[in-house]
Structure formats: structure tokens, C-alpha cells
């Protein structure tokens, strides 16, 4: 696959993931109390921390999502989302194992996603993150190889003079 194609795939995936998270954040930001209730049902985090999570996580989704859409610090934003999704998957799997009745509230109070939905959605997102990171790495490696070839080429031109 050529470099342009990889850049295109990376940009499209980043755009989709970014828009999904911006939408999710915009749904949650105006009503943090509902998100507190949703997080509480997971029984994963200490009670005192729930408000801070409900206030901070949607803004983290918004800022990192905007960076993916704008193509700024894509790798960093993707890693942040990867860590968040792994956390959500762990929390949902634990809730399933304990038989907890959860509603993820991932897309606001009107979204009634179950623990299984949380796992499936985030598993799909993890695949997208890996592709974004892998494409970025491949693009960077090819550029590095190209630059090294150019440098080597310019050195090669100078060889006859040294002789």
C-alpha cells in the first residue's frame, strides 16, 4: 500500500473516531449528574471521585476528539482514547461478571447501552485506534527511509570529488 493511501486511511479513521467522541462529549457535558449516576452503577471507582470523572472525561473526549478531527497530535489523542476504551471495556466486563445493572450513558442520558454494547463499541474503537497508530507509524517509517535515501544519494554525488 502506498504512503498516500495510508495517510488517507489514517485521516478518515481519525475523522470518524473524532466525530464519534465529540458527539458523545456534547451529549454528556451539559448534564454531569446523569453521567455520575451512570458511572456509579459500574461500582468501579470510589464514590468521592465520581463527580470529577463525570466532569473531566467528557471534556477529555471533546479535546482529544477535536485533535483527531483537526489532525493535530493524532498519536497522542489516539493513545488517550485507547486507554479510555480499555478502561470502559474492563469496567463493562466486570459489571457483566458481577451481574450489575448498568446503563453506560456513553452518549448521554438517553442512550441506554448495556455492558455488552459498551464492550462491542469499544472493541471496534480499539481496532480503529490500532489502525490509526499503525498507519501513522508506517507513514513515518517510509518518510524516514525516503529521507535517508535522499541523504545517501547526495553523499553519493560527492564521492567522485573525494577521489
Amino acid at each position, binding site marked *: 500500500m502506498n504512503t498516500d493511501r495510508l495517510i488517507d486511511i489514517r485521516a478518515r479513521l481519525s475523522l470518524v473516531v473524532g466525530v464519534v467522541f465529540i458527539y458523545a462529549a456534547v451529549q454528556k457535558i451539559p448534564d*454531569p449528574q446523569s453521567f*455520575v449516576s451512570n458511572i456509579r452503577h459500574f461500582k468501579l471507582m470510589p464514590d*468521592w471521585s465520581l*463527580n470529577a470523572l*463525570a466532569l473531566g472525561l467528557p*471534556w477529555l473526549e471533546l*479535546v482529544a476528539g477535536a485533535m483527531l478531527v483537526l489532525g493535530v497530535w493524532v498519536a497522542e489523542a489516539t*493513545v488517550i482514547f485507547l486507554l479510555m476504551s480499555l478502561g470502559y471495556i474492563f469496567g463493562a466486563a466486570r459489571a457483566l461478571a458481577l451481574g450489575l445493572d448498568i446503563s453506560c450513558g456513553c452518549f448521554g442520558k438517553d442512550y441506554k447501552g448495556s455492558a455488552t454494547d459498551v464492550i462491542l463499541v469499544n472493541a471496534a474503537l480499539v481496532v480503529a485506534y490500532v489502525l490509526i497508530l499503525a498507519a501513522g507509524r508506517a507513514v513515518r517509517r517510509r518518510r524516514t527511509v525516503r529521507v535517508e535515501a535522499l541523504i545517501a544519494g547526495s553523499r553519493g554525488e560527492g564521492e567522485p570529488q573525494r577521489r
Partner: protein
Amino acid sequence: MLVSAYRMVLILLLSLVLAAGYNRLASPAPIPWVTPPRPGAGGASTSSSHPSTAEGGLTAADVKRAIESGLVKLVDARSPEEFAEGHIPGALNLPIKQYKEDFGLAYQVGLRQEDDIIVYCKSPECDESVDLTERLTRNGFTKVRNYAGGIEGWKAAGGPVEKP
């Protein structure tokens, strides 16, 4: 792969600053950053080996006295199916899941904002009564308390159970 921890920290800090600013200046529903102790503190922090009591909260005896006074409205926050299996005598059923979708339901079941209300659910481990207490309080019901022991704590304390 080049991922800068420094940039990740910056993203995190920017998010926190925006969250704090919005919560302080523009949010229609600002909340404190540290979650205050829950009303009738129960939930996972309450020992289930003493289901009739809640640490620092209402006990089954308190609920019994409240019922006898006739001045308190008891509210069962569980589903209609659970309510039908047995509830504290005289309790009204206001399922939290339905109340979240229709705030008018509180008035339909007979609650008024000035009422003295005690909410309960299944046991110290359930969250419905905590959620309902918070929601009712936010919606203008000023005297709402949570009986964290729930129907299990009530039964363990020898309280009678009513079935429709």
C-alpha cells in the same frame, strides 16, 4: 511509534481547565468536583452483614417510627415487578428508570415537593434509592432521605411486607 507523554499531559490539562471553566461559569447544572457523601450513605460502603442499618443513616426502627407518625411518605424505587413481590406497607412505587424519563411521575404517584419522603430499594448494595433521592432533591423535593437498608434490611429487622 513516537508518542509524546508531554503532549498527552497537555491534552489532559487543557481538558481539565476547560471542564473547570465550563462547570464554574457556563454549566446549566454545575456540580462539585468531589462527590459529597450520599444521602443515607449506604451502597457498597455499608456492611451487608447488618442490613437493617445504614452507617449514619436511617435504620429500620427509624422507618417504622416514621410510618407510625403518618407524616412521611415511603417510596420504593425498584421496578414494578419487584414492588409487586413485596414492599414496605403503604409505600408508593416510583421506579427510578421510569422517573428518569418522566419527572411528572412523582406527582402522578402522589408526591408533593413539600412532603417528607423516605426512599428505599432492595438492599445496601442497590443504587436505585440513592439515584432517586438525588433526582428528587434536584427537582425541588426538599425533604428526601434514603433508607439504605432497603426491603431486605426491613425484613431482617422483622418488618411486615405488603403485597398487592
